[in-house]
């Protein structure tokens, strides 16, 4: 799939995410928008997955360690055909299977239930280790939040992945610089991420999280790196694609009202139309 097509899917994922959060009147749009390009590349270019056989034991795995960005995951699953697109707007409803945070028991394509920060990357480690134990070549992908790295458990996992040489594991770190209470460096500075992960024994690649080419290239470099896990430090814009949400921590966990949603939808639709014309 070419880069324009992948960018188009990223914007469709963004539209699903914003629409779902608006419909639910709650949820986490900011971080969902910042990971949309990564999700598009993973689900449409990188991962060996099959919507017709979501439990295939040899499939690649994905764990959304920053589980609150479920709207982006559900958007990717809908676009890829794991769940019907029309279900997206049932997010967070008591009669829906689309839980506020990913639920592996009831949502096709979700490989791990996450939401409590710091735990997803450890589960991804477990999956990568299982592949090693079984001599299988599937790969495991996870996305960490930057604020999430304030959880000590993340660093237990960082130690573990390097110690057991999990070169079949790729962790993206969505470095959008904002958490609920504001600038991550002011709340509780977890940076510098590159030096820390390097010191823990990881192969670190820094990219622009919204550059499809850089995402693809980093994933290829990760495959070439043997004997150590790869961290892709992805510098992103929280709220990417919706002008008034960009770089504003207020949109970490707030839903747009009807008027705001209309503005967001118009912006995203315009971008989708532009990309469709080019794709």
């Amino acid at each position, binding site marked *: 799939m070419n880069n324009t097509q992948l960018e188009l899917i990223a914007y469709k994922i963004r539209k699903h995410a914003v629409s779902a959060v608006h419909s639910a009147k709650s949820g986490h749009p900011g971080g969902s928008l910042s990971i949309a390009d990564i999700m598009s590349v993973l689900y449409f270019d990188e991962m060996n997955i099959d919507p017709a056989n979501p439990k295939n034991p040899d499939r690649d*795995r994905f764990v959304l360690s920053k589980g609150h960005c479920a709207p982006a995951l559900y958007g990717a699953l809908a676009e890829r055909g794991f769940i019907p697109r029309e279900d997206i707007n049932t997010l967070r409803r008591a009669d829906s299977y689309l839980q506020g945070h990913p639920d592996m*028991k009831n949502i096709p394509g979700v490989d791990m*239930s996450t939401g409590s920060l710091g735990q997803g990357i*450890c*589960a991804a480690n*477990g999956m990568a280790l*299982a592949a090693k134990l079984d001599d299988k070549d599937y790969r495991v992908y996870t996305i960490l939040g930057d604020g999430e790295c304030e959880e*000590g458990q993340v660093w237990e996992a960082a*130690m573990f992945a390097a110690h*057991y040489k999990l070169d079949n594991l790729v962790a993206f770190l969505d470095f959008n610089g904002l958490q609920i209470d504001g600038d991550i460096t002011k709340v509780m500075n977890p940076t510098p991420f590159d030096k820390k992960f390097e010191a823990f024994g990881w192969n670190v690649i820094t990219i622009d999280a919204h550059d499809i080419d850089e995402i693809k290239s980093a994933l290829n470099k990760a495959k070439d790196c043997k004997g150590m896990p790869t961290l892709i430090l992805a510098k992103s814009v929280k709220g990417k694609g919706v002008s008034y949400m960009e770089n504003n921590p207020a949109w970490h966990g707030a839903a747009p009202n009807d008027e705001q949603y209309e503005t967001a939808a118009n912006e995203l639709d315009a971008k989708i139309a532009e990309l469709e014309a080019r794709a």
Partner: protein
Amino acid sequence: MADKKIATRESYGKALADLGKEYDIVVLDADLSKSTKTDTFKKEFPDRFINMGIAEQNMMSTAAGLASCGKVVFASSFAMFAAGRAFEQIRNSICYPKLNVKIGATHAGISVGEDGATHQCLEDIGIMRTIPNMVVINPADDVEARAAVKAAVLHDGPVYLRFGRLAVPVLYDEAEYEFEIGKGVLLEDGTDVSIVATGLMVEPALEAKKMLAAEGINARVINIHTIKPIDRDILVKAAKETGAIVTCEEHNVIGGLGSAVAEVLCEEAPVPMERVGVKDAFGKSGVPADLLKEYGLTAEDIAAAAKKAVSRK
């Protein structure tokens, strides 16, 4: 046989090493394999033993990831650091998605002894049994402990296995004993009062029966190895037939076996009830036998509680 003493943590390690031959189990430990006895498994199956280092939270969530790929995973540490420190990982990573992870928690209770309060977990039964999908088992002896480990392997879903540090008498004959998750065991019949015990307290419960017999009280003794799901039938029957209940556990009286039994009986067959256990206190350093005495966990304490329960009928 009665003279033979084996700590249930020894049974755990031995069972893992035996079961490893037949089942594709993976064992994780957090730098305590010599104490939890998972090193017995490690010696047999070094490729399927993963040392996590001193990182219990990571251990539980990693176990979840392994289990999601089809492994039967045992995650081991002391009860304090398994159930206590990693509670939320057990809840969210393991129990919520109902993954096939077995928590092998050793060094439970006050009989840890000399290490003192920080290492004597008296709350684990309570906190583990409040989690949906979790099975909680506290075996009484070597035979039961090994049977419980096998049952945990065969059970689809999370299991919390509570083992002790202290060597305890072997109560069961392996050739005859049939272990079933959720099924209480009638050890001694009786008509005046029922003593319901779990884990290390089963043996003093049997002793208490003898003491009570000398005073003309005919006590029933029931072993509840599975605290969740609890055997409601055996408890209701005991309450109705004997009219008084005493629970015995090496655990805080809040939240553990006593609470679980009270929940059943309040709903189905309320009778006078006494709870033998640690009375909402922290432990301390000491020789296990001295601590069991000081904290009121002896056969004498059970017999006294039984008499009190009978007097309240």
